[in-house]
């Protein structure tokens, strides 16, 4: 807790002794990471789905098809950029960029390691959550401006869905804030240092009395996992782009690079929520085994691999489950998840009061 938290920015300033270089590097590094991650995730999506379905997946682009995503990016760059005549052009063109910006802005506060965080602001959790909600505006803009009925239906559904699922997610996050008594992601991470039983999934650091709240924190984790699936529009909550009903939902009319932006934004969002899960419940950059393999560089490894596990879980669920209907989806959040989230919040509050 007492350890000095360095931002990536400070670290590079120290290295290069120039503010400008530091600024540029800090801005581009996560972008580079995001690009590499997106390629890996797209390949992962293709290959994992193939594995689940007893297929091979892409095999002819490089060895075992591992550079398939590169080919896809090269292809998408060349595609014609169609703006439909009937579309509201400024909004139509802005939507994918807004969506991508929102997803990318979240990366500003993600702590990759104890010393690497692009911006170590105190309201990190709040900020990341706010940026996640911004994506819905891009979605609505895209859906409405396309002047396509399928897009419009997709956009309407997604607004209802994302806003509703933010409530249980916010309450769960608030509970973690109460437990950690901080909104700084680095502090939350640092709190969970040591062995894995100090993770908030297992009630955070504390005495054996914390065993009482482990069911509560477990259910909080599940709540947040489900809510995060809904926020990123993944199955079983992918009704905004539900292929069998709404053709391609809000991005039906998008082609070429603008579609790629939506595509990237979806994968970026997946990582952001996976990162948030690993920070809030799984100790972020902390090694699970005390001092073993612990440190700033190992932290990057632990953080990314924990996040990738949850990206994998999202992909896994997508290829396993059917999707819910729009009214059932709303029923789940308002009738089940929100009350449970409130109960969790109350239970944690009580526990803290008597502890």
């Amino acid at each position, binding site marked *: 807790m007492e350890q000095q938290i360095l931002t990536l920015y400070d670290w590079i300033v120290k290295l290069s002794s120039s503010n400008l270089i530091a600024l540029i590097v800090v801005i581009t590094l996560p972008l580079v990471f995001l690009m590499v991650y997106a390629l890996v995730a797209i390949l992962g999506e293709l290959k994992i789905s193939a594995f689940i379905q007893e297929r091979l997946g892409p095999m002819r682009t490089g060895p075992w098809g591992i550079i398939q995503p590169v080919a896809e990016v090269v292809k998408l760059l060349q595609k014609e950029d169609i703006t439909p005549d009937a579309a509201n052009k400024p909004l139509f063109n802005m939507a994918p960029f807004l969506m991508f910006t929102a997803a990318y802005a979240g990366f500003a506060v993600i702590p990759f390691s104890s010393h690497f965080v692009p911006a170590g602001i105190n309201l990190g959790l709040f900020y990341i959550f706010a940026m996640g909600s911004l994506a819905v505006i891009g979605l609505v803009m895209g859906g409405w401006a396309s002047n396509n009925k399928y897009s419009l239906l997709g956009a309407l559904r997604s607004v209802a869905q994302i806003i509703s699922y933010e409530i249980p997610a916010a309450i769960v996050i608030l509970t973690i804030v109460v437990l950690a008594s901080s909104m700084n992601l680095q502090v939350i991470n640092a709190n969970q240092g040591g062995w894995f039983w100090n993770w908030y999934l297992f009630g955070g650091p504390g005495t054996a009395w914390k065993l009482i709240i482990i069911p509560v924190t477990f259910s909080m984790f599940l709540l947040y996992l489900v809510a995060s699936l809904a926020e990123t529009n993944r199955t079983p909550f992918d009704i905004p782009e*539900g*292929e069998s*009903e709404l053709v391609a939902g809000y991005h039906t009319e998008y082609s070429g690079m603008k579609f790629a932006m939506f595509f990237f934004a979806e994968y970026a969002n997946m990582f952001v929520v996976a990162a948030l899960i690993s920070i809030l419940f799984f100790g972020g950059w902390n090694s699970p085994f005390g001092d073993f393999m612990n440190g700033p560089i190992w932290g990057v490894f632990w953080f990314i691999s924990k996040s990738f596990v949850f990206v994998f879980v999202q992909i896994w669920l997508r290829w*396993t*489950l059917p*999707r819910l209907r729009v009214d059932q989806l709303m029923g789940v959040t308002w009738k089940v998840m929100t009350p449970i989230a409130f109960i969790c919040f109350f239970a944690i509050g009580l526990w803290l009061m008597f502890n």
Partner: protein
Amino acid sequence: MGETKKVEFEYSQIDSERMRLNVGPQHPSTHGVLRLEVELDGEIVTEVIPHIGYLHRCFEKHCEKMTYPQVIPYIDRMDYICAMNNEWPYVMGIEKLMGIEVPEKVEYIRVIFAELNRIANHQIAIATFGLDAGAFTPFLYLFRDREFILSIFEKASGGRLLYNYYWVGGLAADVHKEFKEDVLSIVKQVRETNKEIADLLLYNKIFIERVANVGILPADVAISYGCSGPVARGSGLAFDLRKDAPYSIYDRFDFDVVTGHGEVGTVGDCFDRNIVRFHEMEQSCRIIEQAIEQMPMDGDVREKLPKKIRPPKGEIYTKAENPKGELGFYIVSNGTDKPERIKSRGTSFVNLSVLPEISKGYLFADLIMILGSVDIVLGEVDR
């Protein structure tokens, strides 16, 4: 101040704008080239108008221009998912007109192939139904198994999808030597996969939520609309031509007519229609096993026939229980080698006509599920 009047708030009085949505002909879940004109109130379907004919291939015109055996390939292309079953009522009708008795072995092979094709059809039906609900993986599992069935058909007829195998007075070719073992191994595989599918898809909580109590079709409406096959049986109607009007040698086999009984919801909902297909696969397996046991392996598969098939002047309506329901052919012969007229009663054509009736008042997502549960093939709807 005037008197205060309590304003009755009624939903129907709200002047909400209805949206007309065009679904298809290119839409991922219209199962082909069906076009639905849907009127939506928010997301609630208020009206569905199917527009068909996007695959109208002039089947009946071709029948009048072709000789009797030449018609069979066109029949294959009507309901291309279960081509074996399609050919059957047609050749049966001509055999009846001409008074041909086909050899015992042929009857058994016809039954086995028809039932195998029934399984293949139901596999596609359940697979695409799951796909409509967003479950992609069960679709591929079922398609994997379907390939095994197709390989048997290929060994017998040379075709994977369209066979031209049932000929008037017999079959196009004999089956191969290891036929019985191959078929039994397929039956085993089908049963195994069915267990998997039941766990993964049919009794999945999310899936049940999606399909139970949706698109309820009462039995009397089903009769009035002429529904048959799993659509009618899903409504609790034990209407199966294999039992009711036994043709061929179906009276020798012991099997049950599966009907929907509202297992998780109301009788006649999407779940019932789908689960009927699922259980019918098991019944088909039973029939196949019995047929394999009784089937003689030696003997000819073709009756001696005149070179040109010329049924006497007359007319006949033949029907058989297709995987999708009653497939009928009204064959009018004028004594020459070309039919005067063949009218086909497309099963899907009739079953689809019930869609506007049962999809009103449900959500748009439900409409897709209802359409999937009716299980149509556009080749048969439009002919």
